[in-house]
Protein backbone atom coordinates (compact mmCIF):
# COMPACT_ATOMS: atom_id res chain seq x y z
CA UNK A 1 0.00 0.00 0.00
CA UNK A 2 1.40 3.38 -1.01
CA UNK A 3 1.44 5.78 1.93
CA UNK A 4 1.82 8.77 -0.42
CA UNK A 5 -1.89 8.58 -1.16
CA UNK A 6 -2.80 9.74 2.37
CA UNK A 7 -0.33 12.66 2.33
CA UNK A 8 -2.66 15.13 0.56
CA UNK A 9 -4.79 14.80 3.70
CA UNK A 10 -2.06 14.68 6.33
CA UNK A 11 -0.04 17.63 5.04
CA UNK A 12 -2.79 20.27 5.23
CA UNK A 13 -4.23 18.73 8.40
CA UNK A 14 -0.94 18.89 10.28
CA UNK A 15 -0.05 22.29 8.83
CA UNK A 16 -3.48 23.56 9.82
CA UNK A 17 -3.16 22.19 13.35
CA UNK A 18 0.28 23.73 13.75
CA UNK A 19 -1.10 27.03 12.51
CA UNK A 20 -3.80 26.84 15.16
CA UNK A 21 -1.16 26.28 17.81
CA UNK A 22 0.78 29.29 16.56
CA UNK A 23 -2.35 31.33 15.86
CA UNK A 24 -1.15 34.08 18.19
CA UNK A 25 2.38 33.89 16.79
CA UNK A 26 3.96 36.31 14.30
CA UNK A 27 2.36 36.46 10.84
CA UNK A 28 5.70 35.90 9.16
CA UNK A 29 5.99 32.51 10.82
CA UNK A 30 2.46 31.54 9.86
CA UNK A 31 3.12 32.51 6.25
CA UNK A 32 6.29 30.45 6.13
CA UNK A 33 4.45 27.46 7.59
CA UNK A 34 1.52 27.81 5.22
CA UNK A 35 3.80 28.20 2.21
CA UNK A 36 5.83 25.19 3.30
CA UNK A 37 2.73 23.04 3.64
CA UNK A 38 1.30 24.14 0.29
CA UNK A 39 4.61 23.74 -1.50
CA UNK A 40 5.02 20.23 -0.11
CA UNK A 41 1.45 19.50 -1.14
CA UNK A 42 2.27 20.57 -4.69
CA UNK A 43 5.24 18.22 -4.82
CA UNK A 44 3.18 15.33 -3.46
CA UNK A 45 0.46 16.09 -5.99
CA UNK A 46 2.99 16.06 -8.83
CA UNK A 47 4.30 12.69 -7.66
CA UNK A 48 0.79 11.24 -7.34
CA UNK A 49 -0.06 12.60 -10.79
CA UNK A 50 2.90 10.75 -12.23
CA UNK A 51 1.87 7.70 -10.20
CA UNK A 52 -1.68 7.68 -11.57
CA UNK A 53 -0.48 8.08 -15.14
CA UNK A 54 -0.49 4.33 -15.66
CA UNK A 55 -3.90 2.72 -15.50
CA UNK A 56 -3.32 1.25 -12.05
CA UNK A 57 -5.81 2.53 -9.46
CA UNK A 58 -4.15 3.23 -6.11
CA UNK A 59 -6.26 2.11 -3.15
CA UNK A 60 -5.39 3.04 0.44
CA UNK A 61 -7.15 1.22 3.28
CA UNK A 62 -7.32 3.77 6.06
CA UNK A 63 -6.98 1.98 9.45
CA UNK A 64 -6.26 -1.15 7.44
CA UNK A 65 -9.82 -2.42 7.06
CA UNK A 66 -10.80 -3.71 3.61
CA UNK A 67 -13.55 -2.07 1.61
CA UNK A 68 -16.50 -1.92 1.81
CA UNK A 69 -16.15 -2.16 5.61
CA UNK A 70 -13.36 0.27 6.26
CA UNK A 71 -12.90 3.65 4.57
CA UNK A 72 -10.72 3.65 1.47
CA UNK A 73 -8.91 6.44 -0.31
CA UNK A 74 -8.76 5.95 -4.07
CA UNK A 75 -6.23 7.52 -6.38
CA UNK A 76 -7.14 7.26 -10.03
CA UNK A 77 -6.32 9.59 -12.91
CA UNK A 78 -9.18 11.97 -12.19
CA UNK A 79 -8.47 12.40 -8.49
CA UNK A 80 -4.75 12.80 -9.17
CA UNK A 81 -5.48 15.45 -11.81
CA UNK A 82 -7.77 17.35 -9.47
CA UNK A 83 -5.31 17.13 -6.56
CA UNK A 84 -2.62 18.65 -8.75
CA UNK A 85 -4.99 21.32 -10.03
CA UNK A 86 -5.97 22.22 -6.47
CA UNK A 87 -2.36 22.46 -5.34
CA UNK A 88 -1.39 24.76 -8.21
CA UNK A 89 -4.40 26.98 -7.69
CA UNK A 90 -3.79 27.05 -3.93
CA UNK A 91 -0.19 28.13 -4.41
CA UNK A 92 -1.26 31.05 -6.57
CA UNK A 93 -4.00 32.10 -4.16
CA UNK A 94 -1.69 31.80 -1.16
CA UNK A 95 1.08 33.88 -2.71
CA UNK A 96 -1.47 36.56 -3.47
CA UNK A 97 -2.87 36.38 0.05
CA UNK A 98 0.60 37.19 1.37
CA UNK A 99 0.15 40.65 -0.14
CA UNK A 100 -2.06 41.75 2.72
CA UNK A 101 -5.24 39.70 2.55
CA UNK A 102 -4.09 37.46 5.39
CA UNK A 103 -3.67 40.55 7.56
CA UNK A 104 -7.37 41.44 7.42
CA UNK A 105 -8.32 38.91 10.09
CA UNK A 106 -7.06 36.09 12.28
CA UNK A 107 -6.44 32.40 11.47
CA UNK A 108 -6.58 32.94 7.70
CA UNK A 109 -3.81 30.46 7.01
CA UNK A 110 -5.22 27.75 9.28
CA UNK A 111 -8.59 28.02 7.52
CA UNK A 112 -6.81 27.99 4.17
CA UNK A 113 -5.05 24.72 4.99
CA UNK A 114 -8.23 23.11 6.31
CA UNK A 115 -9.94 24.19 3.11
CA UNK A 116 -7.34 22.26 1.17
CA UNK A 117 -7.83 19.28 3.48
CA UNK A 118 -11.53 19.23 2.72
CA UNK A 119 -11.08 19.57 -1.03
CA UNK A 120 -8.38 16.90 -1.24
CA UNK A 121 -10.41 14.57 0.93
CA UNK A 122 -13.45 14.97 -1.29
CA UNK A 123 -11.34 14.08 -4.32
CA UNK A 124 -9.70 11.06 -2.67
CA UNK A 125 -12.30 9.34 -0.56
CA UNK A 126 -14.09 6.24 -1.80
CA UNK A 127 -16.79 6.24 0.87
CA UNK A 128 -20.05 8.15 0.59
CA UNK A 129 -20.39 9.13 4.25
CA UNK A 130 -16.73 10.03 4.42
CA UNK A 131 -17.40 12.26 1.42
CA UNK A 132 -20.06 13.95 3.55
CA UNK A 133 -17.52 14.50 6.31
CA UNK A 134 -15.00 16.02 3.92
CA UNK A 135 -17.73 18.16 2.38
CA UNK A 136 -18.44 19.51 5.86
CA UNK A 137 -14.74 20.19 6.47
CA UNK A 138 -14.52 21.96 3.12
CA UNK A 139 -17.69 23.91 3.85
CA UNK A 140 -16.97 25.05 7.40
CA UNK A 141 -13.52 26.15 6.26
CA UNK A 142 -15.01 27.96 3.29
CA UNK A 143 -17.48 29.74 5.59
CA UNK A 144 -14.57 31.09 7.56
CA UNK A 145 -12.55 32.06 4.50
CA UNK A 146 -15.53 33.58 2.73
CA UNK A 147 -16.23 35.87 5.69
CA UNK A 148 -12.57 36.68 6.20
CA UNK A 149 -12.12 40.42 6.57
CA UNK A 150 -15.78 41.17 7.23
CA UNK A 151 -17.93 43.87 5.69
CA UNK A 152 -21.64 44.28 5.14
CA UNK A 153 -22.11 42.67 1.72
CA UNK A 154 -19.65 39.91 2.53
CA UNK A 155 -21.47 39.06 5.72
CA UNK A 156 -24.83 38.92 4.01
CA UNK A 157 -23.50 36.79 1.16
CA UNK A 158 -21.84 34.57 3.76
CA UNK A 159 -25.02 34.14 5.77
CA UNK A 160 -26.92 33.08 2.66
CA UNK A 161 -24.16 30.71 1.62
CA UNK A 162 -24.01 29.11 5.06
CA UNK A 163 -27.76 28.60 5.52
CA UNK A 164 -28.15 27.18 2.01
CA UNK A 165 -25.32 24.75 2.52
CA UNK A 166 -26.50 23.66 5.97
CA UNK A 167 -29.84 22.81 4.41
CA UNK A 168 -27.96 21.03 1.66
CA UNK A 169 -25.99 19.00 4.21
CA UNK A 170 -29.26 17.79 5.74
CA UNK A 171 -30.37 16.64 2.30
CA UNK A 172 -27.03 14.86 1.94
CA UNK A 173 -27.63 12.91 5.18
CA UNK A 174 -31.15 11.94 4.11
CA UNK A 175 -29.80 10.78 0.76
CA UNK A 176 -27.17 8.69 2.52
CA UNK A 177 -29.87 7.27 4.78
CA UNK A 178 -31.97 6.23 1.81
CA UNK A 179 -29.06 4.71 -0.10
CA UNK A 180 -27.76 2.84 2.94
CA UNK A 181 -31.27 1.67 3.73
CA UNK A 182 -31.65 0.21 0.25
CA UNK A 183 -28.15 -1.03 -0.50
CA UNK A 184 -26.80 -1.60 2.99
CA UNK A 185 -23.42 -0.18 2.08
CA UNK A 186 -21.58 3.15 1.97
CA UNK A 187 -18.50 2.38 -0.08
CA UNK A 188 -18.92 4.09 -3.48
CA UNK A 189 -17.56 1.16 -5.45
CA UNK A 190 -19.78 -1.21 -3.51
CA UNK A 191 -22.74 1.12 -4.07
CA UNK A 192 -22.06 0.88 -7.78
CA UNK A 193 -21.83 -2.90 -7.58
CA UNK A 194 -25.08 -3.22 -5.63
CA UNK A 195 -26.88 -0.61 -7.73
CA UNK A 196 -26.31 -2.77 -10.80
CA UNK A 197 -28.09 -5.69 -9.14
CA UNK A 198 -30.99 -3.89 -7.42
CA UNK A 199 -34.27 -5.76 -7.20
CA UNK A 200 -36.93 -3.95 -9.24
CA UNK A 201 -39.04 -2.95 -6.24
CA UNK A 202 -36.03 -1.21 -4.71
CA UNK A 203 -35.10 0.73 -7.83
CA UNK A 204 -37.43 3.73 -7.36
CA UNK A 205 -36.27 4.29 -3.79
CA UNK A 206 -32.61 4.00 -4.73
CA UNK A 207 -33.20 6.34 -7.65
CA UNK A 208 -34.81 8.87 -5.32
CA UNK A 209 -31.76 8.70 -3.07
CA UNK A 210 -29.46 9.16 -6.03
CA UNK A 211 -31.43 12.15 -7.29
CA UNK A 212 -31.30 13.74 -3.85
CA UNK A 213 -27.53 13.32 -4.01
CA UNK A 214 -27.61 15.09 -7.35
CA UNK A 215 -29.35 18.06 -5.75
CA UNK A 216 -26.71 18.23 -3.02
CA UNK A 217 -23.87 18.13 -5.51
CA UNK A 218 -25.67 20.57 -7.78
CA UNK A 219 -25.85 23.04 -4.90
CA UNK A 220 -22.10 22.79 -4.47
CA UNK A 221 -21.57 23.13 -8.20
CA UNK A 222 -23.94 26.13 -8.36
CA UNK A 223 -26.14 24.66 -11.06
CA UNK A 224 -29.32 26.53 -11.87
CA UNK A 225 -31.58 26.99 -9.91
CA UNK A 226 -29.20 26.35 -7.00
CA UNK A 227 -26.67 28.92 -8.14
CA UNK A 228 -27.94 31.98 -6.27
CA UNK A 229 -25.27 31.98 -3.61
CA UNK A 230 -22.39 31.99 -6.07
CA UNK A 231 -22.38 35.42 -7.71
CA UNK A 232 -22.68 37.18 -4.37
CA UNK A 233 -20.30 34.96 -2.43
CA UNK A 234 -17.58 34.97 -5.08
CA UNK A 235 -18.20 38.57 -6.00
CA UNK A 236 -17.88 39.93 -2.48
CA UNK A 237 -15.18 37.84 -0.86
CA UNK A 238 -11.44 38.60 -0.91
CA UNK A 239 -9.60 37.89 -4.15
CA UNK A 240 -7.41 34.95 -3.08
CA UNK A 241 -10.41 33.23 -1.52
CA UNK A 242 -12.45 33.74 -4.68
CA UNK A 243 -9.52 32.38 -6.68
CA UNK A 244 -9.28 29.30 -4.47
CA UNK A 245 -13.06 28.84 -4.65
CA UNK A 246 -12.70 28.45 -8.41
CA UNK A 247 -12.08 24.78 -7.58
CA UNK A 248 -14.97 24.49 -5.09
CA UNK A 249 -17.75 24.36 -7.65
CA UNK A 250 -15.71 21.76 -9.49
CA UNK A 251 -15.86 19.56 -6.39
CA UNK A 252 -19.60 19.35 -6.94
CA UNK A 253 -19.09 18.48 -10.60
CA UNK A 254 -16.50 15.88 -9.64
CA UNK A 255 -18.90 14.27 -7.17
CA UNK A 256 -21.61 14.12 -9.84
CA UNK A 257 -19.27 12.49 -12.34
CA UNK A 258 -17.84 10.04 -9.79
CA UNK A 259 -21.14 8.88 -8.30
CA UNK A 260 -23.19 8.68 -11.44
CA UNK A 261 -20.61 6.85 -13.52
CA UNK A 262 -20.63 4.27 -10.73
CA UNK A 263 -24.42 4.23 -10.51
CA UNK A 264 -24.48 3.37 -14.21
CA UNK A 265 -22.11 0.44 -13.59
CA UNK A 266 -22.63 -2.31 -16.15
CA UNK A 267 -25.91 -0.91 -17.40
CA UNK A 268 -27.70 -1.29 -14.08
CA UNK A 269 -31.22 0.04 -13.48
CA UNK A 270 -29.91 3.48 -12.44
CA UNK A 271 -28.09 3.98 -15.75
CA UNK A 272 -28.84 7.25 -17.52
CA UNK A 273 -30.79 8.52 -14.52
CA UNK A 274 -29.41 12.05 -14.47
CA UNK A 275 -28.20 12.83 -17.99
CA UNK A 276 -31.49 14.39 -19.21
CA UNK A 277 -31.69 16.55 -16.06
CA UNK A 278 -28.05 17.51 -16.44
CA UNK A 279 -28.44 18.58 -20.06
CA UNK A 280 -31.38 20.85 -19.25
CA UNK A 281 -29.75 22.26 -16.13
CA UNK A 282 -26.48 22.78 -18.00
CA UNK A 283 -28.14 24.81 -20.74
CA UNK A 284 -29.99 26.92 -18.18
CA UNK A 285 -26.84 27.45 -16.14
CA UNK A 286 -24.93 28.45 -19.26
CA UNK A 287 -27.64 30.93 -20.20
CA UNK A 288 -27.97 32.37 -16.71
CA UNK A 289 -24.21 32.69 -16.40
CA UNK A 290 -23.94 34.45 -19.73
CA UNK A 291 -26.74 36.89 -18.99
CA UNK A 292 -25.38 37.48 -15.51
CA UNK A 293 -21.96 38.24 -16.93
CA UNK A 294 -23.50 40.71 -19.36
CA UNK A 295 -25.64 42.33 -16.68
CA UNK A 296 -23.11 42.82 -13.89
CA UNK A 297 -21.24 46.10 -13.76
CA UNK A 298 -18.80 44.93 -11.12
CA UNK A 299 -15.95 43.06 -12.77
CA UNK A 300 -15.64 40.62 -9.89
CA UNK A 301 -19.34 39.82 -10.13
CA UNK A 302 -18.89 39.37 -13.88
CA UNK A 303 -16.15 36.83 -13.30
CA UNK A 304 -18.26 35.05 -10.70
CA UNK A 305 -20.84 34.60 -13.43
CA UNK A 306 -18.10 33.35 -15.74
CA UNK A 307 -17.56 30.59 -13.18
CA UNK A 308 -21.21 29.67 -13.73
CA UNK A 309 -20.67 29.68 -17.48
CA UNK A 310 -17.77 27.28 -17.08
CA UNK A 311 -19.93 25.03 -14.90
CA UNK A 312 -22.67 25.05 -17.52
CA UNK A 313 -20.18 24.21 -20.25
CA UNK A 314 -18.69 21.42 -18.15
CA UNK A 315 -22.08 19.88 -17.44
CA UNK A 316 -23.04 20.05 -21.10
CA UNK A 317 -20.06 17.87 -21.84
CA UNK A 318 -20.76 15.58 -18.88
CA UNK A 319 -24.42 15.20 -19.77
CA UNK A 320 -23.40 13.63 -23.08
CA UNK A 321 -22.34 10.62 -21.02
CA UNK A 322 -19.76 9.64 -23.64
CA UNK A 323 -16.01 9.28 -23.37
CA UNK A 324 -15.53 12.15 -25.78
CA UNK A 325 -17.79 14.29 -23.61
CA UNK A 326 -15.89 13.46 -20.44
CA UNK A 327 -12.58 14.08 -22.19
CA UNK A 328 -13.71 17.55 -23.16
CA UNK A 329 -15.09 18.23 -19.71
CA UNK A 330 -11.83 17.24 -17.98
CA UNK A 331 -9.72 19.44 -20.20
CA UNK A 332 -12.15 22.32 -19.85
CA UNK A 333 -12.32 21.82 -16.08
CA UNK A 334 -8.58 22.31 -15.69
CA UNK A 335 -8.55 25.28 -18.03
CA UNK A 336 -11.55 27.08 -16.58
CA UNK A 337 -10.48 26.60 -12.96
CA UNK A 338 -7.03 28.10 -13.47
CA UNK A 339 -8.19 30.89 -15.74
CA UNK A 340 -11.08 32.07 -13.56
CA UNK A 341 -8.78 31.83 -10.56
CA UNK A 342 -6.27 34.11 -12.27
CA UNK A 343 -9.08 36.37 -13.45
CA UNK A 344 -10.27 36.99 -9.88
CA UNK A 345 -6.76 38.07 -8.91
CA UNK A 346 -6.48 40.35 -11.93
CA UNK A 347 -9.84 41.93 -11.18
CA UNK A 348 -8.64 42.63 -7.65
CA UNK A 349 -5.44 44.23 -8.96
CA UNK A 350 -7.55 46.44 -11.21
CA UNK A 351 -9.79 47.36 -8.28
CA UNK A 352 -6.71 48.15 -6.20
CA UNK A 353 -5.36 50.31 -9.02
CA UNK A 354 -8.38 52.62 -9.19
CA UNK A 355 -10.35 54.35 -6.51
CA UNK A 356 -13.76 53.09 -7.57
CA UNK A 357 -12.96 49.41 -7.23
CA UNK A 358 -13.84 47.18 -10.14
CA UNK A 359 -17.05 48.91 -11.17
CA UNK A 360 -16.76 49.28 -14.93
CA UNK A 361 -19.10 52.26 -15.06
CA UNK A 362 -16.81 54.89 -13.59
CA UNK A 363 -14.03 55.89 -15.89
CA UNK A 364 -10.61 56.01 -14.34
CA UNK A 365 -7.82 53.86 -15.70
CA UNK A 366 -6.07 51.73 -13.08
CA UNK A 367 -2.58 52.73 -12.11
CA UNK A 368 -0.03 50.66 -14.01
CA UNK A 369 -2.62 49.82 -16.63
CA UNK A 370 -0.07 48.53 -19.15
CA UNK A 371 0.70 45.16 -17.48
CA UNK A 372 -2.83 44.90 -16.11
CA UNK A 373 -4.29 45.55 -19.54
CA UNK A 374 -2.26 42.75 -21.09
CA UNK A 375 -3.21 40.36 -18.28
CA UNK A 376 -6.87 41.31 -18.59
CA UNK A 377 -6.76 40.81 -22.35
CA UNK A 378 -5.19 37.37 -22.05
CA UNK A 379 -7.54 36.27 -19.29
CA UNK A 380 -10.50 37.45 -21.35
CA UNK A 381 -9.28 35.65 -24.46
CA UNK A 382 -8.82 32.45 -22.47
CA UNK A 383 -12.19 32.78 -20.74
CA UNK A 384 -14.10 33.45 -23.94
CA UNK A 385 -12.37 30.62 -25.74
CA UNK A 386 -10.67 32.56 -28.51
CA UNK A 387 -7.37 31.38 -29.93
CA UNK A 388 -4.61 31.02 -29.12
CA UNK A 389 -5.38 30.17 -25.48
CA UNK A 390 -6.72 27.04 -23.83
CA UNK A 391 -10.38 28.01 -23.88
CA UNK A 392 -10.58 27.24 -27.57
CA UNK A 393 -9.17 23.74 -27.24
CA UNK A 394 -11.63 22.86 -24.47
CA UNK A 395 -14.52 24.30 -26.43
CA UNK A 396 -13.58 22.48 -29.63
CA UNK A 397 -13.28 19.19 -27.73
CA UNK A 398 -16.78 19.68 -26.32
CA UNK A 399 -18.25 20.80 -29.65
CA UNK A 400 -16.80 17.73 -31.30
CA UNK A 401 -18.14 15.51 -28.53
CA UNK A 402 -21.59 16.95 -29.07
CA UNK A 403 -21.37 16.16 -32.77
CA UNK A 404 -22.56 12.59 -32.39
CA UNK A 405 -25.64 13.57 -30.40
CA UNK A 406 -29.15 14.57 -31.50
CA UNK A 407 -28.63 17.77 -29.50
CA UNK A 408 -25.89 18.97 -31.83
CA UNK A 409 -27.68 22.12 -32.98
CA UNK A 410 -28.84 23.12 -29.52
CA UNK A 411 -25.52 22.60 -27.78
CA UNK A 412 -23.46 24.25 -30.51
CA UNK A 413 -25.69 27.29 -30.66
CA UNK A 414 -25.67 27.61 -26.89
CA UNK A 415 -21.89 27.38 -26.61
CA UNK A 416 -21.04 29.60 -29.57
CA UNK A 417 -23.63 32.29 -28.87
CA UNK A 418 -22.72 32.39 -25.19
CA UNK A 419 -19.09 32.74 -26.21
CA UNK A 420 -19.89 35.66 -28.50
CA UNK A 421 -22.02 37.46 -25.90
CA UNK A 422 -19.33 37.11 -23.26
CA UNK A 423 -16.76 38.34 -25.74
CA UNK A 424 -18.84 41.46 -26.37
CA UNK A 425 -19.38 42.01 -22.67
CA UNK A 426 -15.72 41.53 -21.73
CA UNK A 427 -14.56 43.73 -24.60
CA UNK A 428 -16.92 46.41 -23.35
CA UNK A 429 -15.72 46.08 -19.77
CA UNK A 430 -12.11 46.14 -20.89
CA UNK A 431 -12.51 49.21 -23.06
CA UNK A 432 -14.25 51.00 -20.18
CA UNK A 433 -11.62 50.01 -17.65
CA UNK A 434 -8.48 50.62 -19.66
CA UNK A 435 -9.34 53.03 -22.46
CA UNK A 436 -11.41 55.65 -20.75
CA UNK A 437 -10.76 58.63 -18.57
CA UNK A 438 -7.55 59.75 -16.89
CA UNK A 439 -5.07 57.35 -15.31
CA UNK A 440 -5.84 56.86 -11.65
CA UNK A 441 -3.76 58.83 -9.20
CA UNK A 442 -3.92 55.87 -6.84
CA UNK A 443 -0.38 54.89 -5.88
CA UNK A 444 -1.33 51.19 -5.95
CA UNK A 445 0.51 50.49 -9.19
CA UNK A 446 0.79 46.69 -9.05
CA UNK A 447 4.23 45.54 -7.95
CA UNK A 448 5.78 42.29 -9.16
CA UNK A 449 4.92 40.36 -5.97
CA UNK A 450 1.31 41.30 -6.67
CA UNK A 451 1.41 40.41 -10.35
CA UNK A 452 3.31 37.14 -10.04
CA UNK A 453 0.48 34.94 -8.69
CA UNK A 454 -1.88 36.04 -11.44
CA UNK A 455 0.82 35.51 -14.06
CA UNK A 456 1.64 32.10 -12.56
CA UNK A 457 -1.97 30.94 -12.83
CA UNK A 458 -2.60 32.51 -16.22
CA UNK A 459 0.57 31.13 -17.77
CA UNK A 460 -0.97 27.66 -17.48
CA UNK A 461 -3.41 28.55 -20.24
CA UNK A 462 -0.85 28.84 -23.05
CA UNK A 463 0.94 25.80 -21.62
CA UNK A 464 -2.28 23.80 -21.87
CA UNK A 465 -2.33 24.67 -25.57
CA UNK A 466 1.38 24.22 -26.19
CA UNK A 467 1.25 20.75 -24.64
CA UNK A 468 -2.28 20.24 -25.88
CA UNK A 469 -1.34 16.88 -27.38
CA UNK A 470 -0.34 15.10 -24.16
CA UNK A 471 -2.95 17.02 -22.15
CA UNK A 472 -5.82 15.86 -24.33
CA UNK A 473 -4.35 12.35 -24.33
CA UNK A 474 -4.40 12.37 -20.53
CA UNK A 475 -7.95 13.69 -20.46
CA UNK A 476 -9.04 10.94 -22.81
CA UNK A 477 -7.33 8.27 -20.74
CA UNK A 478 -9.00 9.71 -17.63
CA UNK A 479 -12.38 9.56 -19.30
CA UNK A 480 -11.82 5.97 -20.35
CA UNK A 481 -10.84 5.06 -16.79
CA UNK A 482 -13.95 6.75 -15.39
CA UNK A 483 -16.20 4.76 -17.68
CA UNK A 484 -14.47 1.46 -16.90
CA UNK A 485 -16.35 1.12 -13.61
CA UNK A 486 -15.63 -2.61 -13.31
CA UNK A 487 -11.91 -1.94 -13.05
CA UNK A 488 -12.58 0.68 -10.35
CA UNK A 489 -14.82 -1.62 -8.31
CA UNK A 490 -12.40 -4.51 -8.63
CA UNK A 491 -9.48 -2.39 -7.52
CA UNK A 492 -11.30 -0.89 -4.54
CA UNK A 493 -12.97 -4.04 -3.22
CA UNK A 494 -10.04 -6.24 -4.18
CA UNK A 495 -7.43 -4.43 -2.08
CA UNK A 496 -6.37 -6.69 0.79
CA UNK A 497 -5.29 -5.31 4.17
CA UNK A 498 -1.87 -5.91 5.69
CA UNK A 499 -2.99 -7.45 8.94
CA UNK A 500 -4.87 -10.75 8.85
CA UNK A 501 -8.63 -10.13 8.58
CA UNK A 502 -11.67 -12.34 8.45
CA UNK A 503 -12.18 -13.11 4.74
CA UNK A 504 -14.91 -10.73 3.60
CA UNK A 505 -18.12 -12.42 2.54
CA UNK A 506 -20.42 -10.26 0.48
CA UNK A 507 -23.29 -8.93 2.62
Amino acid at each position, binding site marked *: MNHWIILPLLLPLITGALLLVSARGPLRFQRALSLLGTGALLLVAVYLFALANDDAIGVYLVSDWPGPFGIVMVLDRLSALLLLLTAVLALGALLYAFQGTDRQGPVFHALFQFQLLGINGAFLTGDLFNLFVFFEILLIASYGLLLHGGG*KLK*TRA*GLHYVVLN*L*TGSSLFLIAI*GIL*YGVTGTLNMADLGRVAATLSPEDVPLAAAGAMLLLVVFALKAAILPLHFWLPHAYGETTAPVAALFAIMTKVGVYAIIRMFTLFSHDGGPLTGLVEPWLLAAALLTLAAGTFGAMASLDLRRKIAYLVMVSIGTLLLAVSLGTQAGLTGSFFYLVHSTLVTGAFFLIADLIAKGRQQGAMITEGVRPAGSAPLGVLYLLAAIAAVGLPPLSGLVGKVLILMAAQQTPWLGLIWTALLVSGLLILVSLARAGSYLFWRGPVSTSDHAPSWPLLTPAILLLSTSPLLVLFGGPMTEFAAATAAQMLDTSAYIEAVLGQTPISPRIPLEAP
Partner: protein
Amino acid sequence: MELLLASIIGLLVACGLYLILRSRTFSVVLGLVLLGYATNLFLFASGRLATNQPALIGEGPPFADPLPQALVLTAIVIGFAMIAFVVVLALRARGELGSEHVDGLDREADQ
Protein backbone atom coordinates in the same frame (compact mmCIF):
# COMPACT_ATOMS: atom_id res chain seq x y z
CA MET B 1 -43.89 2.09 15.43
CA GLU B 2 -42.19 2.61 12.04
CA LEU B 3 -45.18 4.66 10.93
CA LEU B 4 -45.00 6.80 14.05
CA LEU B 5 -41.29 7.47 13.71
CA ALA B 6 -41.65 8.22 10.03
CA SER B 7 -44.38 10.75 10.62
CA ILE B 8 -42.38 12.35 13.43
CA ILE B 9 -39.42 12.73 11.07
CA GLY B 10 -41.76 14.22 8.48
CA LEU B 11 -43.18 16.67 10.99
CA LEU B 12 -39.73 17.77 12.15
CA VAL B 13 -38.61 18.27 8.55
CA ALA B 14 -41.69 20.35 7.81
CA CYS B 15 -41.35 22.50 10.93
CA GLY B 16 -37.62 22.93 10.37
CA LEU B 17 -37.96 23.95 6.76
CA TYR B 18 -40.82 26.32 7.50
CA LEU B 19 -38.66 28.06 10.10
CA ILE B 20 -35.69 28.18 7.73
CA LEU B 21 -37.95 30.01 5.29
CA ARG B 22 -38.65 32.76 7.88
CA SER B 23 -36.91 36.10 7.66
CA ARG B 24 -35.33 36.32 11.13
CA THR B 25 -31.95 34.77 11.73
CA PHE B 26 -33.08 33.33 15.05
CA SER B 27 -36.01 31.49 13.48
CA VAL B 28 -33.69 30.15 10.81
CA VAL B 29 -31.32 28.82 13.45
CA LEU B 30 -34.18 27.09 15.27
CA GLY B 31 -35.25 25.65 11.94
CA LEU B 32 -31.79 24.28 11.29
CA VAL B 33 -31.76 22.67 14.72
CA LEU B 34 -35.09 20.94 14.12
CA LEU B 35 -34.00 19.86 10.63
CA GLY B 36 -30.86 18.45 12.23
CA TYR B 37 -32.92 16.31 14.58
CA ALA B 38 -34.99 15.09 11.68
CA THR B 39 -32.02 14.10 9.54
CA ASN B 40 -30.32 12.35 12.45
CA LEU B 41 -33.47 10.37 13.15
CA PHE B 42 -33.76 9.53 9.45
CA LEU B 43 -30.18 8.33 9.23
CA PHE B 44 -30.73 6.37 12.45
CA ALA B 45 -33.90 4.83 11.07
CA SER B 46 -32.08 3.65 7.97
CA GLY B 47 -30.62 0.94 10.24
CA ARG B 48 -34.18 -0.22 10.99
CA LEU B 49 -35.64 -0.23 14.50
CA ALA B 50 -34.56 -2.57 17.23
CA THR B 51 -35.74 -2.21 20.81
CA ASN B 52 -33.48 -3.13 23.74
CA GLN B 53 -30.70 -4.62 21.64
CA PRO B 54 -27.68 -2.38 22.17
CA ALA B 55 -24.78 -3.26 19.93
CA LEU B 56 -22.67 -4.50 22.81
CA ILE B 57 -20.95 -7.78 22.22
CA GLY B 58 -21.65 -10.23 24.96
CA GLU B 59 -25.25 -9.32 25.38
CA GLY B 60 -26.10 -11.76 22.64
CA PRO B 61 -27.65 -11.27 19.25
CA PRO B 62 -29.70 -10.01 17.55
CA PHE B 63 -28.11 -6.59 17.53
CA ALA B 64 -29.25 -3.18 16.46
CA ASP B 65 -27.40 -2.10 13.32
CA PRO B 66 -24.38 -0.29 14.77
CA LEU B 67 -23.24 1.46 11.58
CA PRO B 68 -26.03 4.06 11.36
CA GLN B 69 -25.53 4.78 15.04
CA ALA B 70 -21.88 5.54 14.40
CA LEU B 71 -22.84 7.74 11.48
CA VAL B 72 -25.41 9.61 13.52
CA LEU B 73 -22.84 10.21 16.25
CA THR B 74 -20.56 11.86 13.72
CA ALA B 75 -23.50 13.75 12.25
CA ILE B 76 -24.54 15.04 15.67
CA VAL B 77 -21.09 16.44 16.40
CA ILE B 78 -20.74 18.01 12.96
CA GLY B 79 -24.26 19.37 13.25
CA PHE B 80 -23.34 20.97 16.54
CA ALA B 81 -20.29 22.63 15.03
CA MET B 82 -22.41 24.01 12.21
CA ILE B 83 -25.13 25.30 14.52
CA ALA B 84 -22.56 26.97 16.75
CA PHE B 85 -21.05 28.66 13.72
CA VAL B 86 -24.33 29.86 12.30
CA VAL B 87 -25.44 31.21 15.71
CA VAL B 88 -22.29 33.28 15.91
CA LEU B 89 -22.70 34.30 12.29
CA ALA B 90 -26.18 35.54 13.16
CA LEU B 91 -24.59 37.73 15.83
CA ARG B 92 -22.00 38.97 13.37
CA ALA B 93 -24.73 39.70 10.85
CA ARG B 94 -26.57 41.76 13.43
CA GLY B 95 -23.34 43.59 14.12
CA GLU B 96 -22.53 44.25 10.45
CA LEU B 97 -25.98 44.74 9.03
CA GLY B 98 -27.56 46.23 12.10
CA SER B 99 -30.57 43.97 11.74
CA GLU B 100 -31.73 40.43 12.33
CA HIS B 101 -33.25 40.09 8.87
CA VAL B 102 -31.45 37.42 6.86
CA ASP B 103 -31.06 39.85 3.98
CA GLY B 104 -30.06 42.77 6.15
CA LEU B 105 -32.44 45.66 6.46
CA ASP B 106 -31.63 48.40 3.98
CA ARG B 107 -30.05 47.27 0.71
CA GLU B 108 -29.20 50.81 -0.39
CA ALA B 109 -26.94 51.30 2.57
CA ASP B 110 -24.87 48.34 1.43
CA GLN B 111 -23.94 49.72 -1.96
